[in-house]
């Protein structure tokens, strides 16, 4: 698959006007955004193109306490506009402090022409037409489905040409696409007198796959229908099966915070070699996962992406570094300088943000647990969680928990009645010898799936705390 040629020169143009001492970097983006919003099965609003071109300039300056930095972003690409942003960055660096001993900016990087799959070529060529086809594919199955219909939804696509340059000679560029899709499916079928049920799909991805969305609709309708007859879960410590879609809302924000040089600087990172997970668990961070929303040829500082092993059979092997935190500890950047990921939100306007060190796509190595059905069988008496209300954990303490929007009791090794309400929770990560999600993994499935920031099989955790009636 050939990546589109990048025509934008945003960062390079801004750098031409830059008159500041080294070291410096400029990150540029030229984006087009297209959106279709649905009300039921009707198109309510069409947006686009929404055009945005801008850059972020960062300068590094030696101060008493180390190497400070200043950052400013702007959409003004005139000579005066670049000068104003650079003046802001210089002024901010005057006041800032950071204990880096040195800063080593990457001197070269691959371009987007290296085969990495981060740009949907059809979407790139015909954005609105492709989105319309995707909407048709998502809505088509409802022609023949009785008792469930979409109540609202949207698909929003951003086509971005990214450019990076710095005082070390880096000139990198690549194109990528990012798609955000939501659809609320409302069920009226099922038990008489019960209120309607809803299953609310939220997905972030790098490409649109009409055939995939079309195939998923019947499952979404079934979940919405099951909401209508769901009962509250029990209270207690239960084996819980967590599919990839749930793990994507729980695991990346904790590991992406704690397994970093930033956490090490604040003395909250796990120690290398310590056992913070079950010995069956190996977790990598991989910035080159095909179609991963965190994937790119280079990170947002220009360091080539690669795979990093965070947990090797439960033991901490490696932490993530951007150039600043690498400079504190005398190590190299791992390609983990990422822009625009604040908490759980992925901002499509990355140039507005300075890089932060965090994960890209976490890869949990498949285990021997087999299929989802086999994991359910292994659970015996427990709970399958299909969707949580807001599971987002506290990234520092690692505590997570959320309301069960739809799940299923597991009885005798089989999925049984749907459950809804109450909460399921625990701690993602905790010190050696204390219970946690990663420490209590009882089985790892054999088939990984990609969901936003994680590529993982389904996991069986024994136990997690469930609070119901």
């Amino acid at each position, binding site marked *: 698959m050939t990546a589109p040629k990048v025509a934008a020169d945003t960062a390079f143009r801004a750098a031409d006007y830059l008159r500041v001492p080294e070291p410096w970097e400029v990150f540029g983006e030229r984006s087009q*955004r297209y*959106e279709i919003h649905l*009300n*039921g099965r009707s198109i*309510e609003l*069409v*947006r686009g*193109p*929404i*055009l*945005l071109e801008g850059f*972020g300039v960062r300068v590094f300056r030696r101060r008493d306490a180390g190497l400070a930095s200043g950052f*400013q*972003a*702007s*959409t*003004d690409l005139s000579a005066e506009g670049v000068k104003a*942003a650079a003046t*802001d960055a210089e*002024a*901010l660096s005057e*006041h*800032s402090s*950071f204990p880096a001993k040195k800063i080593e900016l990457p001197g070269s990087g691959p371009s987007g022409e290296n085969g990495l799959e981060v740009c949907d070529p059809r979407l790139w060529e015909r954005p609105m037409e492709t989105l319309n086809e995707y909407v048709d594919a998502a809505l088509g199955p409802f022609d023949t489905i009785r008792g469930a219909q979409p*109540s*609202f939804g949207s698909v929003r696509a951003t086509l971005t040409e990214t450019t990076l340059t710095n005082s070390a000679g880096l000139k990198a560029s690549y194109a990528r696409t990012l798609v*955000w899709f939501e659809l*609320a499916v*409302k069920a009226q079928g099922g038990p008489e007198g019960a*209120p309607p*049920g809803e299953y*609310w799909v*939220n997905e972030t991805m790098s490409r649109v796959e009409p055939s995939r969305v079309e195939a998923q609709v019947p499952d979404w309708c079934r979940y919405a229908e099951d*909401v209508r007859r769901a009962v509250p879960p029990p209270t207690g410590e239960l084996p819980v099966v967590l599919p990839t879609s749930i793990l994507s809302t729980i695991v990346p924000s904790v590991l992406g915070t704690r397994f970093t040089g930033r956490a090490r*600087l*604040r*003395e909250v990172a*796990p120690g290398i070699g310590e056992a913070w997970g079950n010995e069956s668990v190996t977790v990598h961070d991989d910035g080159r996962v095909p179609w991963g929303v965190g994937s790119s040829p280079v990170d947002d500082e220009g360091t080539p992406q690669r795979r990093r092993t965070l947990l090797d059979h439960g033991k901490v092997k490696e932490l993530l570094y951007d150039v600043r935190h690498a400079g504190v500890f005398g190590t190299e950047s791992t390609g983990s300088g990422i822009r625009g990921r604040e908490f759980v939100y992925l901002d499509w*306007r990355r140039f*507005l943000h300075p890089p932060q060190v965090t994960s890209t796509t976490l890869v949990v190595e498949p285990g021997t647990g087999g299929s989802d059905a086999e994991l359910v069988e292994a659970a015996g008496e427990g709970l399958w969680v299909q969707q949580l*209300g*807001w599971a987002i954990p*506290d990234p*520092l*303490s690692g505590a997570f*928990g*959320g*309301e069960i929007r739809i799940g299923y009791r597991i009885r005798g090794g089989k999925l049984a009645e749907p459950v809804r*309400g*109450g*909460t399921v*929770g*625990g701690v993602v990560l*905790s*010190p050696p010898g204390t219970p946690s999600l990663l420490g209590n993994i009882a089985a790892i499935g054999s088939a990984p799936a990609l969901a936003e920031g994680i590529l993982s099989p389904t996991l069986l955790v024994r136990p997690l*705390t*469930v*609070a*119901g*009636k």
Partner: protein
Amino acid sequence: MTDLREFEDDFAHALARLVHRTRFVELLAELEEGEEVRIDRRSLTPSLDPRIQGAVIRAWGGERWVEAATSALNRASLDQAAASVERSVSKSATGAAPPGESATTRGEWADRPARPMRSLGSDAMISLARDAFSWAIAVPGVKDCQVEVGWSENQRFYLNSAGARCFQLISRVGANVAPIAIENGRVEYDYLSRGYIGGQERLGFLSQERVADVAKGTVELLHARAPPTGEMSVLLDQGTTGTLAHESFGHGTEADQFLRDRSYLRPILGQTVGPESLTIIDQGSHPDGWGTFYFDDEGHLGQRTVLIDRGKFIGALHDRETAAALHVSATGNARRSDFLSRLFVRMTNTYVEPGDWTFDELVREAKNGVVLEHCTSGIEDPLGGQMQIKVKKGRKIENGQLTDLVSSMALSGKVLEVLRQIKGLSRPGDFEMSPGYCGKGHTDLLPVGSGGTFLLSTAVVGPA
């Protein structure tokens, strides 16, 4: 400082291109400037709001709305955005009127704080942040503390083909203090967070006493017990009560959900949903709310909308389209996150009116249960009528007395059951409005206020 009104001729030129192609067109331009200082034990990071500004043009396309936006405020780029809209407008656009009433508001409003944050200067902001940091770190057991002090000035300039012309400048100021304690690999933090409309005069809350209190609370969390689980009496602090209002009768009364037939509340409009003591308000014109504004992004003035009046569900939140569909007036709740984002019906400042209990009386009334303190997030379920609220900590109530400190929890339950089981609210002196950011679904975050006093009810609680 750039003033959006300087671009008025270019805005008008872009609109003029469309007025003969559609029955209605509007333009909203936005510019925000601001500054923040973030400090912790190892670093100091000042930052400025990005130099970004832009405008979105929305037109009635005959059957649906169409819009385009640009981040370049010059005639050529604005005309290009207008041309994009023009291409999407159907030939019938001049015949069909858009839904609802077009605003005709004209006026200019600007916050004029007694002591604007802009004049404080970076050094003074850093000094303030360092003071707060030193107060926290002085508490034994606190290893680090993240302090953020910041302000913003948001300009919005709105024009439409019905004659509306309005400009506003909203000044916001706020600070967060989050001490961190670590022991045997366990990491805990607590927080103090406030945000207001205004200037330097609003930062008085950042006192040594308050910061030390939250720092001591952080250290105590290292030894907090696991929260109780199951259904029990829940006593919510002010911020959590505000979030209850926001999640329970805020999202569910955003009337676009009514039109999508996605609100469990629509069929019960006019019915009694809670005790006489329960009144819930949404107020964009609130003098002290993080979500306060003068006019919304359709040009309608911010106002006070009663959602629940003494237990009876009487009102909802509207933009022009939902108001027309339901034969009421727009309530000034049409908001965009920014000029790059679409418009939705959104909350502003949502709060529960105070009651007449004391906190101690509510604890005694609860008998056994838990106090939920320092809300961290909430999420609604507009169709299913459930909600989830997460808090950082709490305290068990046993035999009408406060006992053990407990760690983070999630409250969940059916909204109507939780509201019906409200036993009381504390007095006006306890009222607080908290700043926050609200999404429509998982996107489109914008500033909102949530407020109330202590509230006693029953719900399911579990770890989070």
